[in-house]
């Protein structure tokens, strides 16, 4: 059996600190008990388990963690975080990892995760509230490589979409948020503050 060697010189010793700063509180106090993995509903579809991710974060295996599919399979269910005997905010760690991966343009094989996050936030910031038809269009455009691919993926959701329209649950126009400029002010304020850091 070949054992993989982790070269510490390739690791980033400040990674855990970076994650804590991005909202993943107590990321550095994990003692590897595995409670998080035991209760994770999506672990079967992950390339690294939540416990492994926590170890890798603390070893500073920045690249591998940010490229892993795990962070995008995580359903943000908070089961791990609620049960961790050390109070590690694991769900928030996963959130912080998504945040950094998006910012650095690191896309996993399944591009749908980042595509959804980017599209959702754009719609929320543009309209002040979520407007599903536009969210679906932007999402399909981003997650597929070609226009036919995007149309195909959209068409899969047409039955549900039409059902929502028929039941009067999907609006044809964006909702009535009257002051979208307010969110731009907030966004710009934050960018300014973060630029000053």
């Amino acid at each position, binding site marked *: 059996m070949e054992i993989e060697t982790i070269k510490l010189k390739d690791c980033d010793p400040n990674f855990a600190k970076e994650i804590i700063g*991005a*909202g993943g509180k107590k990321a550095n106090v994990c003692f590897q008990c595995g409670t998080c993995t035991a209760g994770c*509903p*999506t672990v079967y*579809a992950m390339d690294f388990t939540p416990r492994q991710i926590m170890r890798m974060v603390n070893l500073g295996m920045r690249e591998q963690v940010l490229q892993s599919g795990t962070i*995008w*399979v995580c*359903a*943000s*269910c*908070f*089961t791990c*975080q*609620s*049960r961790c005997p050390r109070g590690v*905010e694991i*769900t*928030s760690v996963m*959130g*912080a990892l*998504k*945040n950094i991966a*998006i910012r650095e343009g690191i896309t996993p094989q*399944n591009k*749908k*995760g980042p*595509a*959804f*996050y980017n599209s*959702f*936030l754009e719609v*929320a910031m543009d309209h*002040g*509230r*979520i407007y*599903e038809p536009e969210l679906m269009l932007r*999402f399909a455009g981003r997650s597929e490589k070609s226009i036919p691919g995007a149309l195909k993926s959209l068409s899969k959701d047409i*039955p*549900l979409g039409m*059902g*929502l329209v028929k*039941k*009067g*649950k*999907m*609006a044809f126009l964006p*909702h009535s*948020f*009257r*002051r979208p400029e*307010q*969110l731009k*002010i*907030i*966004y710009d*304020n*934050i960018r300014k*503050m*973060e630029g000053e850091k």
Partner: protein
Amino acid sequence: MKLAYYPGCSLESTGTEYDMSTKEVFKALDIELCDLGDWNCCGSSVASSKDYLLSLALPARNLAMSEKLELDVMAPCPECYLKLWKARDAVKKDPDTLDKVNKALDGTGLELKGSIDVKHPAYVIVNELGLEKLAERVKKPLDGLKVVPYYGCVMLKPPRDEKLDSPENPTGLDRIITTLGGEVVPFASKVKCCGGGLILTNKEVMLNLTHEILKEAKDAGADCIITACPLCHLALDGRQIDVEKEYNEKIEMPILYFTQLIGLSLGIGPKKLGLDKNFISTQNLLKSLKL
């Protein structure tokens, strides 16, 4: 009792019937809900995956609006409820965060003090109104209807206030069901994730998790599942046909918002509660209740 009402984006669209039934039930229970006016999206789990401060500032704008009304704010969507609560908790615990959030709000004409509380309708009913009061208003008891109390993830997790309910073995919805005269179906997956959060990004995993919940309910002989979350509802109800196709099983399990179930037993008409908007037909259920 008077509360500011934050519907959130889902209740304006896929969760219309949650909005309708919440308003009807609270009216019948004499709890006044004040319109928050020009509220904005709470940012959901997405904003926190994008930028931590943004994930506090988006809900903070809504909190500041509720403060202007001098009212605690109630959010039926558990994700909104969590995000509003998180922002409120963060500024309460740390003056530095409050300062940063207010810097983010600078120029919007709003300022946050952190003086109000954030609430969920299920626990306003259970812990504040009280179940005795609810019992007094029941006009049509559920007559032993077998109901699954499904809590989903974020209504109680991450743990907020132990006084609210237990995050691992909650009983709030159970107690509502019993008060209405229904029978609680013991349910192992009552707090297990339905995969709703992956509804667009990973359909395979989502269908698998949704299937596990529907199957357990079906095997237990439940008449319906109640939920308090528009995303769980979209997965369990809106995607139920996809689950049936994927696993080649007939499930036909009605998924009701807990407010729809309360409304029925308070004698509110099914149409007013939006029961015709649920995807999986609620007709047989209504028939068995002679409604």
